[in-house]
């Protein structure tokens, strides 16, 4: 990859950024679906849907950017990972289809059918979250590559570790969803969400701990990356920061500061995500393909870099405006729908 060294790293950060923004934006949105069965009242469900209806489509666009960007900037990684993650990806897509159409469909049906689309929304969201978590676990544990192709079977992704990461992501998204409700709703609905936050936070901390303990056992390289001297000077602050954010989060939940828990939960996600980056770098397909091996020719990456450097700030700008237009608490009877 002549002359592509620096720009390949820039692109690795851009893709990582797109995926993280996706997790930030669609995580709570999927989380609301996961929590749906716990809010059986129609009025609560209407409020929950209305809190996200104007923005969900933009949230999912980041997933398209992550996928499309990966194909454009690191085609080899895209070509190896997609067949390796075949079943989880298909399951995620199907989940997203069901939950995506539910946003409009549930308002267009008679009472009894509406319930059916509520089930589609909840089931689709849970399926998509589990599939994303499983895909993450499958990537971390590494895939079998020969030449420029995936050479494993179509069930290789299924291991206890990938199931663990699947559950971890689902729990994490549920916590994001619950803290979003704390931020965006009021009254009994908000109180119930506060209550759920406690359980979900402990579940998420348990999941972070379990994944953190299991990861170094997957590969010697992960262990060396985290615990070898002098790396530990750089890696040790990550768990310390997780502990600090957790304390702040617990305090904000106890003090019922509506606007805080959501953003602190996002901080927990950011730290976990940074931890993943520490484990994976410089591989894009762990233990087989580095970011430089997978990179597109420099001229493809440069061509896109022009667009990204101008358009991403613009996109973040008008997305923020859309959130601003629909800011504040959503209440029964005064939703957007």
């Amino acid at each position, binding site marked *: 990859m002549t002359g592509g060294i620096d720009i390949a790293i820039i692109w690795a950060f851009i893709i990582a950024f797109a995926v993280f923004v996706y997790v930030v934006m669609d995580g709570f949105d999927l989380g609301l679906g996961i929590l749906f069965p716990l809010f059986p009242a129609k009025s609560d469900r209407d409020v929950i849907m209305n809190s996200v209806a104007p923005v969900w*489509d933009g949230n999912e666009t980041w997933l398209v950017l992550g996928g499309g960007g990966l194909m454009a900037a690191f085609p080899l990684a*895209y070509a190896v990972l997609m*067949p390796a993650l*075949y079943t989880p990806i298909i399951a995620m897509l199907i989940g997203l289809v069901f939950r995506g159409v539910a946003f409009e469909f549930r308002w*267009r049906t008679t009472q009894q059918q509406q319930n059916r689309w509520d089930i589609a929304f909840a089931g689709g969201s849970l399926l998509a979250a589990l599939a994303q978590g499983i895909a993450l676990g499958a990537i971390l544990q590494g895939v079998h590559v020969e030449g420029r192709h995936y050479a494993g079977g*179509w069930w290789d992704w299924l291991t206890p570790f990938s199931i663990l990461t699947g559950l971890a992501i689902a729990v994490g998204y549920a916590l994001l969803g619950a803290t979003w409700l704390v931020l965006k709703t009021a009254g009994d609905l908000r109180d119930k969400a506060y209550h759920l936050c406690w359980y979900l936070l402990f579940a998420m901390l348990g999941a972070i701990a379990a994944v953190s303990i299991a990861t170094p056992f997957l590969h010697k390289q992960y262990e060396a990356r985290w615990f070898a001297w002098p790396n530990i000077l750089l890696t040790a602050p990550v768990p310390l920061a997780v502990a600090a954010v957790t304390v702040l989060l617990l305090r904000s939940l106890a003090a019922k500061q509506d606007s805080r828990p959501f953003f602190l939960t996002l901080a927990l996600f950011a730290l976990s995500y940074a931890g993943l980056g520490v484990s994976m770098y410089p591989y894009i397909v762990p233990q087989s393909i580095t970011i430089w091996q997978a990179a597109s020719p420099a001229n493809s990456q440069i061509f896109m870099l022009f667009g990204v450097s101008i358009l991403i700030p613009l996109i973040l700008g*008008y997305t923020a405006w859309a959130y601003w237009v629909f800011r504040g608490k959503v209440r029964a009877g*005064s939703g957007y729908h």
Partner: protein
Amino acid sequence: MFDGFGAVELARAQFAFTMSFHIVFPAFSIGLASYLAVLEALWLWSGRDVFLDLFKYWLKIFAVAFGMGVVSGIVMSYQFGTNWSTYADKTGPVIGPLMAYEVLTAFFLEAGFLGVMLFGLERVGHRLHFLATLMVAIGTLISAFWILAANSWMQTPAGYAVNADGQFVTESWLGVIFNPSFPYRLVHMVLAAYLTTALVVGAVGAAHLLRNRNLAGARVMFSMAMWMATLVAPLQILAGDQHGLNTLEHQPAKVMAMEGHFTSHPNGAPLVLFGLPNQAAGKVDYAIEVPRLSSLILKHSLDAPLAGLDTVARDNWPPVPIIFWSFRIMVGMGFLMLGLGLLSLWMRCWGTLYESRLLHIFATAMGPAGFVAVLAGWFTTEVGRQPFTVYGVLRTADSASPLAAPAVGSSLLAFVIVYFIVYAAGLTYLFRLMAQPPQHGEQGPSGDMASHAAGITPAAGVAAEGAVR
């Protein structure tokens, strides 16, 4: 269920299936977004309520259709990797950036302003709301630009080289984007989207006029739609003809299949109207032909020679029967649209546009014609690209993922089941919305419901401390 099919056939079936379900929604929403922008502009400019009523009426339909387009589109963006990973690896450096630009310049623009367009009329000013509608409409057109550039590059690749890893790399981005078939395909597709939408709008208007010919909203939408059919159908036939000539230059085998020309005709080729193309025997059975007309259409000369598939290596033949028929269906629909446009113009001149039951029945029946033509046209061009994914350079058989048939078969089956459930429901809701006549004081999808509700019960509004506005 799919025993006996190879992984490549199943992957192709999956692409054809998911793409066919997807394409009808963008085709409809490109046209509808522009129509909504026109309606809102007319309302702001004239202040007539009927335009606002029609805007809100079609906005509800747009919301449902757009959502279905988005979810089926996410499926497409991952399918290149799941089923066509070798293709993705090889063409990623060329096609990938075009799709990345589509996401950055179009998808985000549409998604970012969609919420305000759907739910924000009472939250932001009218002008700002119009800006949101305009951004969504422009977004759909930008999206068409990039995806058709990518698609056209697969048909008529240009501006590339091949590197040591066997990947296509770009030598000239302008060459890649503005490849030889792109301008023709872009014009043809955008016109197709506008016609498709006009026919749906016209059919809905006509169906309501059949019940009540004095309905103001139905009259306005029907008249607007018929103007579109009158003006755009002839333009589309002209654009299609030009696109065909471009295809003859760059992908002659596709035109040979469309025309059913298995053999070469050195002294003027006949136009095969109908017949049963027999791929194995290399001839058209029971052909009904008009002598020399094909040469006249394609070469503008009655006795110009036209080469046939006998000049193309047999393993490079596309599947002729599919292309032969899909092309005829598309052209037939095009001429029916022209007929509708001309008939409506005639009735309009005689002042019977809103009275003629014959015209209203014809227009209602033509509602799905645009979708049929779009699908038939895509089948013609995409099947006509076979047996290649990148025309003449990369074979379909060498593009697939290294997956076993059961994996691809299972995912195909899953998509078939899911799409039938989701699309059956979606179409039911769309028909239900269209079956309602547009009302005076039409409700939107709903921000207005929200603010109306708040307006009706001010107590709730007051109680909502911290509530939005």
